[in-house]
């Protein structure tokens, strides 16, 4: 290939290469948002509140957990954490090139809503509680989908029918098991009075333990479930922080270069 020696041609060639490079920079896709310290702080604060709530529950005697969960100041902590998670999700959603963090935030919120409801359903027979949790899960999972008012008429009717069936199913089950629920609530309340008054806690794993106590221990407020859920939220917290941490590492690295 003949070498271009004309200075004008060389300059033109150089300029076109420069323009190409600058064009590349300008048009480069943004794959991932840049580091934001506020996102880390938000998530760290949420993780701290979630773990504090679990520590309070686990350090409370089993029979007194229902009372704690129903008490106003403690009940408010579920809502406070949910608000923080919603705010976090919104903030993550509006950051460009941040789809994965936004999805993690949405899943954390969804999990928390299930957790919150499960604690309200501790006294119900597990199949009824499970049905309610599943309904909520379906509603939450569909919440990003087409809503009835945006859908085609046929689709709208189908969605409306599904929702009506869901409501009917829930109300029938709740009424049928009200007596059993009342018995569990009454047992927990009496047993908690006794434990608070200095009585020794019964072993919930003993075959002689009352059925209500065994139900409580094997359910959403039992040690095993709470410990397992605490581990789940530690991992949720880590998943929510890790992308931002990688961005921080890159930003630090770029600063030192």
């Amino acid at each position, binding site marked *: 290939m003949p070498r271009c020696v004309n200075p004008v041609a*060389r*300059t033109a060639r*150089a300029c076109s*290469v*420069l323009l190409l*490079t*600058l064009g*590349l*920079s300008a048009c*480069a*896709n*943004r*794959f*991932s948002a840049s580091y934001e310290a506020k996102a880390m702080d938000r998530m760290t604060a949420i993780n701290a509140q979630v773990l504090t709530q679990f520590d309070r529950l686990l350090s409370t005697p089993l029979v007194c957990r229902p009372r704690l969960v129903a008490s106003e100041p403690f009940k408010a902590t579920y809502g406070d954490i949910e608000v923080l998670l919603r705010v976090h999700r919104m903030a993550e959603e509006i950051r460009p*090139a941040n789809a*994965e*963090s936004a*999805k*993690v935030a949405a*899943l*954390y919120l*969804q*999990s928390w809503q*299930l957790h919150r409801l*499960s604690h309200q359903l501790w006294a119900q027979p*597990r*199949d009824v*509680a*499970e049905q309610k*949790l*599943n309904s909520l*899960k379906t509603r939450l999972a569909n919440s990003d989908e087409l809503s009835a008012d945006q859908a085609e008429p046929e689709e709208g009717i189908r969605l409306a029918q599904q929702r009506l069936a869901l409501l009917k199913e829930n109300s029938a089950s709740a009424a049928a098991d009200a007596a059993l629920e009342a018995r569990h609530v009454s047992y927990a309340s009496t047993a908690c009075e006794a434990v608070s008054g200095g009585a020794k806690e019964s072993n919930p*794993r003993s075959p002689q333990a009352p059925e209500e106590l065994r*139900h409580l*221990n*094997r*359910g*959403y407020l*039992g*040690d*095993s*479930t709470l410990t*397992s*859920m605490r*581990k*789940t939220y530690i*991992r*949720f917290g*880590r*998943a*929510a922080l*890790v*992308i931002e*941490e*990688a*961005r921080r*590492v*890159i930003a630090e*690295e*770029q600063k030192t270069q």
Partner: protein
Amino acid sequence: MSEISDAIQTALQSALNAAKPTTPVARNFVTSFLKGRAVAFVDIAEGLASGDIDEGTARYLLVQEGLLLTAEAEAVAGLSKVALQAAADAFLKSLTDSIKALLKIAL
């Protein structure tokens, strides 16, 4: 145009170096993610077998595990994009710097 080839080689090397710092973060996360999954399933199965949790509660815990698995998979995808972004930024910066330097010589 060997200067340009050299510039591209340098840019590629810069891209590889830029993505490297995310590796320990990603490696630790993925390791704990895989371990966490195994432990969680064993915990639920053991709890069920020993009678510490009932079937309904075990199913609830599995639902929660499902949400967590999706979140962790998203985080892994996010980590790859952070590394990709760092590589792309470093590649373009290096290429632009090299070409600017070459142009100074050329002009």
